[in-house]
């Protein structure tokens, strides 16, 4: 399986996701933001970080970068695209995914383990994961997902909610919503479910000495479904 990680100036999880993809058997390659084309791939990953410093609005400049048209073409032709953290922000800026990511509710950066519930397994990203609740890790300042009521209705009608923040038993109380996201949304799909954007970093959870191992389930499953 071939994957491609796009590096924007200011990306800082590019190496981490490269390590994770390779660990689980992907043949991964890195592509620089100024390149115009993407080599043949089965999966494109937009990594976490602060692309172009995120000085304007998170992900907005990356959403207009040279390489992004190739990502959009790839996604529109049904290719799998995964945006993690800043990658998720970029995907909303390109309109490949609906909604926006605002400042966290308490205005602080948050780095910690959280639990997320898988809302939809009818897709390549989560299909054969046996668990329903995963322990993931978040590290962001702007992860507060927001969309209009109409958009939310359409997201729900089309089963686009991928993962939601919860506690270890799956309770989705406001207490377990770390950043104020609408409906505790931690990640969403496009309608066709070939694009996933999420705030948590599965690449930081790939062995027992790190924050946890549930990220391994995510990558193993991804490889299996090709």
């Amino acid at each position, binding site marked *: 399986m071939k994957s491609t990680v796009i590096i924007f100036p*200011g990306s800082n*999880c590019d190496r981490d996701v490269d390590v994770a993809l390779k660990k689980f058997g992907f043949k991964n390659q890195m592509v620089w933001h100024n390149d115009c084309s993407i080599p043949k791939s089965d999966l494109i990953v937009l990594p976490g970080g602060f692309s172009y*410093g995120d000085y304007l609005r998170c992900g907005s400049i990356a959403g207009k970068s040279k390489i992004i048209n190739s990502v959009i073409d790839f996604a529109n032709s049904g290719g799998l695209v995964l945006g993690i953290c800043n990658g998720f922000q970029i995907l909303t800026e390109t309109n490949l995914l609906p909604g926006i990511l605002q400042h966290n509710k308490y205005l602080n950066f948050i780095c910690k383990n959280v639990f997320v519930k898988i809302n939809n397994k009818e897709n390549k990203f989560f299909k054969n994961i046996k668990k329903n609740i995963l322990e993931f890790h978040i590290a962001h300042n702007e992860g507060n997902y927001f969309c209009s009521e109409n958009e939310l209705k359409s997201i729900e009608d089309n089963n686009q909610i991928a993962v939601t923040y919860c506690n270890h038993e799956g309770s989705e109380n406001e207490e377990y919503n770390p950043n104020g996201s609408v409906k505790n949304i931690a990640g969403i799909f496009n309608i066709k479910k070939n694009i996933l954007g999420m705030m948590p970093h599965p*690449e930081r959870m790939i062995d027992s*000495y790190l924050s946890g191992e549930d990220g391994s389930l995510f990558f193993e499953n991804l490889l299996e479904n090709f």
Partner: protein
Amino acid sequence: MEVNEIIAIEHGLKKDEFKKICDLLKRVPNIIELAIFSAMWNEHCSYKSSKKHLKKLNTKGKNVIQGPGENAGVIDIGDNDAIVFKIESHNHPSFIEPYQGAATGVGGILRDIFTMGARPIANLNSIHFGSPQHKKTKNLLRGVVKGIGGYGNCIGVPTIAGQTTFDESYNGNILVNAMTLGLVNKNKIFYSKAAGLDKPVIYVGSKTGRDGIHGASMASAIFDDRIEEKKPTVQVGDPFTEKLLLEACLELMADKSIIAIQDMGAAGLTSSSVEMASKGKLGIELNLSKIPCREEKMTPYEIMLSESQERMLIVLESGKEKKAKKIFDKWNLDFAVIGKTTNTQKIELFFENKKVAEIPINLLAENAPIYDRKWKKTKLPQKLKLEKNLFKSLNLTDCLKKILASPNISDKQWIWDQYDHTVMGDTIQKPGGDAGVVRVHGSKKAVASTVDSSASYCYAHPLTGGKQVVCESWRNLISVGAKPAAITNCLNFGNPENEKNMGEFVECVEGITEASKFLNFPVVSGNVSFYNETKGKGIKPTPVIGGVGVLSDYKQILSMNLKNIGNLVLVIGKTEGHLEQSIFAKEILSEKKGPPPEINFFNEKNNGETILKLIEKNLIVSCHDISLGGILTSVSKMCIKGKKGIRINPLKSLINKFQYFFGEDQGRYIIELNKKNFDSVKKILDQNSVYFDNLGIVNDNKIIFNNDINLTVDELKNVNKTWLKRYMDH
């Protein structure tokens, strides 16, 4: 402008220093030259008050590749891997403008590390604030934490450990010390010594603006009522540009085109160019018209003093300019050839085709003043007679709760949740442990690091305090299973022109030196911050030690979390019940007098090395050093982190229970082991003559002692976790 004594004094120079400059130059300097002298001769750059004493530091060791004097220290950790590390202060700027001050502190120390060719792999910080009741404390804390996070999170280096304290002596002068560790191939380290004639001098990174002018002299001055006016001397950080600069520099370093490289830190272009030339015993010629400027009409004076961030100066091999420029173009960074090395042994500056300054380098570096300042010894305070009556009305449970909720013991998660501590995917011990630990990427090894200070001990008796901080650093590294390797120190003190403050400095350095020699724990880098004083009030002496240790196999890492019900818990090291200068004395008895706990080097070393033997043989499952708050505080933290309880055995000790549980005797640890390993553990402890007590047995969720304590771990946790969060939320 004609330069005279008054102008010189305005630049922070002393009368006799100005006279010395005129004598050395055999003329009166022009304003640009005066600015250069003032920048190079201030305390921050010249170490004029501290140099004499810093020479005594123990800087040698088998594993030391580079000691003090470079951008950072370097130690060998085997397999061609080396760790580059240093700690630095950014106290004054952080008090004036907490967000930018702290952010640029992190930015500056990161540059010191990657200047040497190392990829930064971990950040730490030691931050000290005034009394929680002081009106400025909350905002300063919030700003500093946001600044540290804002910079480190963006550049993508994990912040793996830190220390936060509150003490009224920092009311008018907070401390912000930032430390970075980097990983480098030991054969590919870059230094700041220029070499060769007519080599191009290159400027890379951000453009030069008017920010931070006089920053270094501000850092060497005391504060008064007019500090608000000093805001423009604080630099503004841009972590995004730093990230680009980091990647571009490392890319250029992959090939052999760099002769010397130096970041433009304190005193910007002035100190970087002078230091590179001075180390290489060369001259340097700079054309200031070629400096990329952010603002219009910048004068040579402003250019030379600007402390704009994210800039580097490089001496390149001739003919490599094009190739190097291509890399910086790729990363969208400025690149300008601004001069060359010469054989004149002078710094010569040109602007708009005119020579605007010319100074022999040795006058700026070797001839800078060195002071042998007067200092006063601090007597060891007498031990206090603590009457029995003092303890009669006290209740163990209440004392424990009060201590766990006290500002300096309370849980600091509110702070480190705001730092990305997991980026780079190698953090195996997060903040909140005895030391942070990161794996050496792609290898079996790991590096542990901790920052420590004990201002109350150092204030009571600087010599003992200096020893104690080094020992505590050593203990924290041992507790995570690391072999202590070397230290860096950030020496934060008051006014060196005051004999008492100077004495505190001299004796703390002496204490550090003694401990570092005995433990074979050399100092490889550091920084001195004097003049931490506002309106005549100095801070408590606060030497901060950044310790680094190595785990040859990261799987041997230990945490303090209690692991399994039924396991035995032992206290390693003898408990004498030393309460003076302890948290108990301060929080419960409101007693500030008396000596700090004594340091016994032999026990310290022996106990630590024996613990490492137990870890190597996989005989223990958790470990925590006993420091502030004594045994009961330490074991409570092990309970909270491990979500387990402990039933504590009846005491066999002759001292009273408060002394036993809250005494801060040094050289002690708490370890947890499976019962079946007790005989093997006892044998090793006995063989090494290490004293131990049977503290108790791990249980499900309660901490119990006789009829004195019966608390659930959740209760303990709430008490420990709420103080800071509540303080910041209200």
